[in-house]
């Protein structure tokens, strides 16, 4: 099946957008991430929820996870308040550490999306028409489609 038929609306934000607002948008849509766009509407990166957490949770807590138990709720709240004043660009890995965004065209197939997700570990693939973002195929959407096809056969 072509991705045009599989793609769903998906939250997206530009690099300079407010990080906290972008995260709220993602949470409100019950999505696992947001697609980051450039000024022309082309996907630059997929910002997953895990990456957002990694960007706000201090490195020392990730180095020594046992310390997460000793902080109280106030401290946890303050950590998440660190999103304030940040832009979406601040949450992305440094340019040299970024990998190519998982992007396919509307004419590409579900198999190509599956291969890309498996190869990159991304939970979604951004779908574009003429280079502009039109939606995304999530892993759950793709698996649901595969399961339905299996039942039909």
């Amino acid at each position: 099946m072509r991705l045009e038929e599989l793609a769903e609306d998906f939250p997206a934000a530009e690099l300079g957008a407010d990080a906290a607002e972008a995260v709220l948008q993602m949470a409100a849509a019950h999505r696992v991430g947001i697609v980051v766009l450039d000024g022309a509407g082309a996907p630059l990166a997929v910002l997953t929820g895990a990456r957002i957490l990694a960007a706000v949770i201090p490195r020392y807590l990730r180095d020594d996870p046992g310390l997460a138990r000793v902080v109280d709720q106030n401290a946890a709240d303050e950590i998440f308040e660190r999103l304030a004043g940040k832009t979406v660009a601040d949450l992305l890995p440094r340019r040299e550490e970024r990998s190519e965004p998982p992007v396919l065209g509307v004419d590409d197939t579900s198999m190509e999306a599956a291969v890309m997700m498996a190869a990159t570990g991304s939970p979604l693939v951004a779908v574009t028409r003429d280079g502009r973002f039109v939606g995304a195929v999530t892993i759950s959407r793709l698996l649901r489609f595969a399961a339905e096809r299996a039942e039909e056969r």
Partner: protein
Amino acid sequence: MTPTAVAAVVVFAVVYVLIASEKIDRIAAVLGGAGVLALIGVITVDTGFHAPETGIDWNVIFLLFGMMVIVSVTKQTGVFEYVAILAAKLARGRPFAVMVTLVLVTAVASALLDNVTTVLLIAPVTLLVCDRLRQAPEPYLIAEALASNIGGTATLIGDPPNIIIGSRAGLDFNAFLWHLGPIVVVLLAVFIGLAWLMWGRTMVADAKAAENVMRLDEKEAISNPRLLVSCAVVLLLVLAGFVTHSITHIDPSIVALLGAGVLVAVSRLGPKEFLEDVEWSTLVFFMGLFMLVGSLVHVGVIEQLGRWLAESVGDRLLFAGTVLLFVSGILSAIIDNIPYVATLTPIVSEMTGPGSGPLDPLWWALALGADLGGNATAIGASANVVIIGIAARNGHPISFWRFTRYGVLVAAVTLVIAWAYWALRYVVLA
């Protein structure tokens, strides 16, 4: 010198330059050098692997390995985090008092554990405490690296150079504690005074931030109380084994291995966990280094050099000790003190001769110089390099010169005080 001796000296010098210049990895340098010496017949299986004077010092390797396994298991209990947070809370969140308690915890832990391990364990807690205290963590992290090098000087197992000296000179845990322990206590007190001048006097307390620290729950850090009890018992037994060496005659390496074995058995951890903190690269580096230095012993270069130095020094212990302590201090600030001490120990051994002799205090001059000199620069000791790496990863970069500015002052003051202690104890009052 014979052609073989010349070849051994040339290979050794090239390897040293490669290590110092960091052109290639230090492990590749020592193993490459050892390989060349094996090819030309200087190193054989007997001289390289089995002879204690010319080969790998397995006492050092297995003492380090045993302690690394003990740390790997003990770390799983969360006790290090518990102690560090408790220390910060005992200081009631006052910024300089917190620095003092963390410095003392680091120094004591470094006397019992490897310095690098200590700073790796203490740094994340320090960053958390500083975060809650709303204090810049850089001064705390620098102070901990410096304190770990001072504290590690006190014992046989505190710093790798001491392990090498202990093994080569036949000095046990008690000897290090007796000879170096008192001065380390003095140096720590002086260091706290310096820390006040360097950082403490400009720190501003914040009552609300102090409350944040007091709300940290250190008890939650303990993840496995049953294992903690086992670790405490085994650590005490290991320490008792070190202290009673003169009675039991069980070498420290065997004590550490037995302790590690018991902990592995009672913890029921898998190899991935109990070998987690074993620094294989360090152990392999030591092996290559011992073979390289041993080759100089084997071809007679060290004996000639030691004899020449002993004749030059004569009975001028003060002169020899002063030169050794300060030269060791300066060189350890620039190059890795482990290869330096590995090279110097056979030379000092030749100078002091077998048994107890008038130049025996030179061992303490070497240990004090090599251990304390490492504080002078950002690259002078492994703990400094590690702490700078952790700071950078957490968004608090510490430049080479920023660290060195404080390190040079601390190294200079502690080396002068250590020299005064050494001269007073072993020359004036001897």
